[in-house]
């Protein structure tokens, strides 16, 4: 009896695991098959040219690639000072107590807000504000654009970096910290020379996860990025990311080659995030502090 249930459980677990694998590879294969027409049509110029004109059947996805990288990286850079401060504050300085719980739930709450709400807020609060700045700077006051999207993204990804980094910082063994204190180190010196070197791979993992989120974020970005299919000349220009162009144009993709082009963008996005993920894992493996004893 016991053996039967064991076999059964084994089979269920196995098939679920294999099912996941099949789903992911199926997804990838479908994307490749449906992306083929556009590659046959435009070849590699799909990746390396920057004119996206569906009416003339010109499909160059480079602006979206660039738009995605710039908004995501800028978003992560803007969020870092805030997310890392929160992580050190909650992980090292106030790891317990009412204040800590309050701040912790407040940051975690940020992760639970639907992205369409961020989009709305960006459109009605951040965009007008950016417009004022752009008028001051004497440039075209679009309001929407890469900078606006990056700010919204930065706020959206703070909880990811902050919560992972916080947990990693909490895991730094207290006897290592005490060893440093016992040598006469100040709190900052302990953070600088013991906590950060020990936790840096985990913190990097949090940053990479946030970057992955930023690359794939669709709704909020689509609402505030301005949706212009041109190569952006400054960070205040309207642009498009891979995710936003799919969301925006999928419904109006009338002919097969147009649809195929959008699916190819999706394939690109898929590969991009996969590579990011694998790179992240590799970096973490390389940097993790080995503790033998």
């Amino acid at each position, binding site marked *: 009896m016991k053996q039967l249930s064991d076999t059964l459980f084994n089979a269920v677990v196995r098939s679920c695991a294999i099912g996941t694998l099949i789903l992911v590879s199926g997804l990838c294969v479908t994307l490749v098959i449906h992306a083929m027409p556009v590659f046959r049509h435009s070849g590699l110029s799909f990746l390396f040219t920057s004119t996206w004109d569906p009416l003339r059947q010109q499909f160059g996805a480079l602006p979206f690639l660039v738009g995605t990288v710039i908004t995501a990286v800028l978003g992560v850079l803007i969020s870092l000072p805030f997310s890392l401060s929160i992580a050190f504050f909650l992980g090292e300085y106030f790891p*317990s107590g009412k204040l800590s719980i309050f701040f912790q739930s407040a940051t975690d709450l940020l992760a639970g807000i639907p992205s369409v709400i961020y989009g709305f807020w960006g459109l009605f609060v951040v965009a007008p504000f950016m417009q004022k700045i752009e008028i001051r700077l004497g440039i075209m006051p679009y309001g929407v654009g890469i900078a606006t999207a990056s700010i919204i993204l930065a706020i959206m990804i703070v909880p990811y970096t902050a919560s992972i980094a916080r947990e990693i910082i909490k895991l730094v063994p207290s006897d290592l910290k*005490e*060893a440093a*204190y*016992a*040598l*006469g180190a100040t709190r900052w010196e302990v953070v600088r*020379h*013991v906590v950060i070197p020990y936790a840096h791979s985990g913190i990097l993992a949090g940053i990479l996860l946030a970057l992955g989120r930023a690359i794939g974020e669709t709704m909020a970005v689509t609402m505030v990025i301005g949706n212009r299919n041109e190569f952006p000349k400054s960070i205040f220009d309207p642009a498009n990311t891979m995710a936003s162009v799919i969301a925006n144009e999928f419904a109006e993709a009338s002919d097969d080659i147009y649809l195929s082009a959008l699916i190819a963008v999706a394939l690109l996005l898929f590969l991009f995030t996969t590579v990011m993920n694998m790179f992240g894992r590799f970096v973490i493996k390389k940097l993790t502090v*080995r503790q033998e004893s």
Partner: protein
Amino acid sequence: MENPILITENLKAYYGNHLVLKDINLEIPRLNITAIMGPSGCGKTTLLRCFNRLHELSPGGRIEGQIWLGDTDILSLDPIMVRRRIGMVFQRPNPFPTMSIYDNVIAGYKLNGMKLSRVEADEIVERALRGAALWDEVKDILHRRGTFLSGGQQQRLCIARALAMNPEVILLDEPTSALDPKATAHIEELLISLKSRVTIIIVTHNIGQAGRIADYTAFLYLGELVEFGPTERLFTAPKDRRTEEYLSGKFG
């Protein structure tokens, strides 16, 4: 007692409102090994952590009374200055896993942002490692991580790290409880060889260890200093019934 290095006067230590050390009056003799022993939870580790004010880092940790180091009350000093003069070795060997053996030894200088020339650093590292009887074993692998060493070697590295700061006192909190008998014997020998240059205070759970290495022994029970004196006298003719019962294994 002539020329004690540390004197506690009515030392009280708390965790929150819980009193864990009750009016400790103790004189630690200079350049000797003093053992603090007692059953679990008697406050011996807390007492040790009062001497370098690490106790105050524990949540709710508070100290009252006086601890004289020479003619200054260390409770009135900046804890950072106290910890540079009084080193510590912990129960579990804890070399910094992100640093090489070399960097571990001079970690005290690095952490405090003190600049050392290459020559000075080399000299400090060699002197400290020789002091900790580890030099011959690691002199060719100084730039490898300290975490690859055996437990006993790691603990001696931690002793070297404390010695490198030239402290007046070294506190050891059950430094051999995580080690095998051979490594333990090695550390005990090392401590005896060190007492001519630095005062040693060791917390131990192990009566035999106190008997083997300590010149003076303090017996703590339920946060009280029950008895303190030369180890030989305390072991052969304890004045207090509780000391006698502890030594004969009736509790602890």
